[in-house]
């Protein structure tokens, strides 16, 4: 946007400039709000991550890189040797693994669902979409406890499996990683279905027909015609599921029985009983960076041109 001074400007350029200025001015309140409300708190978190923990809570205003050091490395509390922070890495890896699995499960379940809805007639479509959004009417915590009720040893799942004679005694599903995965897949499924639906709805089915006319089989049509077109929907859905899964707190806490932490629970520990706010802050920033890396990866993956063939 650099304009060289002294150069004669056409009336048109003048008008464009005025319009740009007006647009900037009009969006100024929104930009200011975003800066204050979004960057402000983030800045506090960032600053806190470079301070020392206070004795009982809060921080001491002394600069320190200790919190960042603690994330990756730990001084063994017993023999004082410095090594990789095994506990922290395990927790991070569990979070990433569970979030990726959640994304994959919701994608596998969501794609046929979205396809089904998008290929119905107008009124039926509205009805099915309405059903998809119903879970959002209830608080997340209540839905999670409902899942807990179903997975319990005396819950619906175990009871029906037992009455069907498939198992002799209840299997322990609750308080395992499986329970967390079931809960997260359930909670985030609508976030996958909706963008997929939007993408499939725009799909021009004449292209599919053209594919068949050119002797492509079903798999080829799906891979070479449908998939490239709905890819933005897949990317959007995956982001919408992966990002909140990574920071999930309630679901692992309630369904996982609190035995194995995810990042969200680990951060909470630092602000609560651990009384180490700087470590909690640096972990929060790290989580943010992972999310940003994931977003960048997706953006690049979705903008890359598909080779024609």
């Amino acid at each position, binding site marked *: 946007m650099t304009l060289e001074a002294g150069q004669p400007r056409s009336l048109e350029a003048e008008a464009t400039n005025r319009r740009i200025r007006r647009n900037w001015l009009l969006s100024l309140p929104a930009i200011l709000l975003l800066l204050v409300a979004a960057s402000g708190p983030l800045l506090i978190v960032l600053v806190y991550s470079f301070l020392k923990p206070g*004795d*009982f*809570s*809060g921080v001491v205003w002394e600069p320190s890189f200790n919190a960042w050091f603690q994330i990756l490395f*730990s001084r063994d*509390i*017993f023999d004082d040797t410095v090594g990789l922070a*095994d*506990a*922290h890495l*395990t*927790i991070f890896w569990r979070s990433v693994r569970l979030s990726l699995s959640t994304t994959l499960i919701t994608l596998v379940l969501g794609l046929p669902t979205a396809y089904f809805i998008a290929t119905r007639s107008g009124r039926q479509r509205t009805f099915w979409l309405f059903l998809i959004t119903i879970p959002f009417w209830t608080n997340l915590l209540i839905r999670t406890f409902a899942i807990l009720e179903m997975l*319990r*040893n005396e819950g619906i799942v175990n009871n029906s499996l037992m009455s069907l004679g498939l198992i002799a005694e209840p299997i*322990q599903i*609750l*308080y395992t990683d499986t329970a967390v995965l079931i809960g997260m897949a359930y909670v985030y499924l609508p976030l996958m279905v909706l963008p997929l639906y939007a993408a499939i709805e725009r799909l021009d089915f004449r292209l599919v027909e053209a594919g068949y006319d050119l002797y492509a089989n079903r798999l080829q049509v799906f891979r070479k015609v449908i998939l490239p077109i709905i890819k933005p929907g897949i990317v959007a859905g995956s982001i919408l599921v992966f990002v909140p899964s990574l920071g999930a707190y309630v679901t692992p806490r309630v369904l996982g*029985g*609190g*035995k*194995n*932490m995810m990042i969200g*629970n*680990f951060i909470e*520990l630092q602000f*609560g*009983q*651990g*009384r*180490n706010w700087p470590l909690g802050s640096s972990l929060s920033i790290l989580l943010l960076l992972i999310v940003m890396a994931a977003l960048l990866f997706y953006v690049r993956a979705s903008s890359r041109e598909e080779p024609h063939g």
Partner: protein
Amino acid sequence: MRTSMLAMSATALLALSTQAFAAGELNIYNWGNYTNPELIKKFEKAHDVKVTVTDYDSNTTALTKIEAGGHGFDIVVPTGNYVPIYVEKGLLLESRPDQMTNFKNVSENWKDVPWDPKRHYTVPWQWGTTGVAVDTSVYGGDINTSAIFLDPPAELVGKVNVVPEMNDIINMTLFYVGGEPCTTDKTVLKKVRDVLVAAKPKWLSMDYGTTDKLSSGEYPATVNWNGSTFRARLNNPKVAYGYPKEGYPLWMDAVAILKDAKNPENAKLFQNFIMEPENAALISAFARYANGIDGSEAFMPEEMRTAPEIVTPEALKSAGQFLPTCSGESRDLYTAIWTELQK
């Protein structure tokens, strides 16, 4: 989020409007499911004061919120080992309960306590123990031991819950291996870590909500507080409470007035009010813990006076210990062990 903001502003408006009607107000910040509504009603009637009770779930939550300021609370009920932190940070009003008319009712052993010498700040609310609760139909052996969760008997493997209270659990394990609370002795702490890490695969979960889950039989065994176990036993008679002979934590929650209280006079009235035996009995009748006020037993239901969860067996009395507030180095060591346990 938006609804809660709306609800908050609505309550704020309500609070403003009620100010004009009641003679006074009192804002109490206390643990959840812990305050007898009858006690509050009685106090409101006696002193024409409108009382609002707000809940918290942990000492750290309460301390953080109060330190941040702007909370509007008059009274807080921290656990004994947190009282010195409040005092040191200058958050409490020296209300001198020891000079109040009902102070004579406080039991002799609660009149002078290490965390509040001569009771210049706080009044007893309730006190209790942290031990183990076991469903006796699942396990019939000796339950007066921390081995219930640190080395579970075969019947309880995979069925034990451990409440995620870092201090309680690590200190109980310290007692179990023969250490002192808040120790920085690494050989002892290493034993603590090894015992905990070895025990964890035999646990079912690490969660709260013990009263309900003991009642329903979902937790055949759990680390638990005595009053909560008492409430569970009333629903499920097979539940029994064990006092670990290796050592178990004692605690007392104490009523203190905040320095920036807007209604300090009403708060003082409340402190004096709950030292009246009849009123202290109301506190205990609800949450099922002992209260430290002499003569309150006379007003309590019969089952309170004889409950094995309230009356500590003579032989196990000496195993109970008040926990000091650990800070600095030992806290960091505790957190490191705790993180490794939950990784």
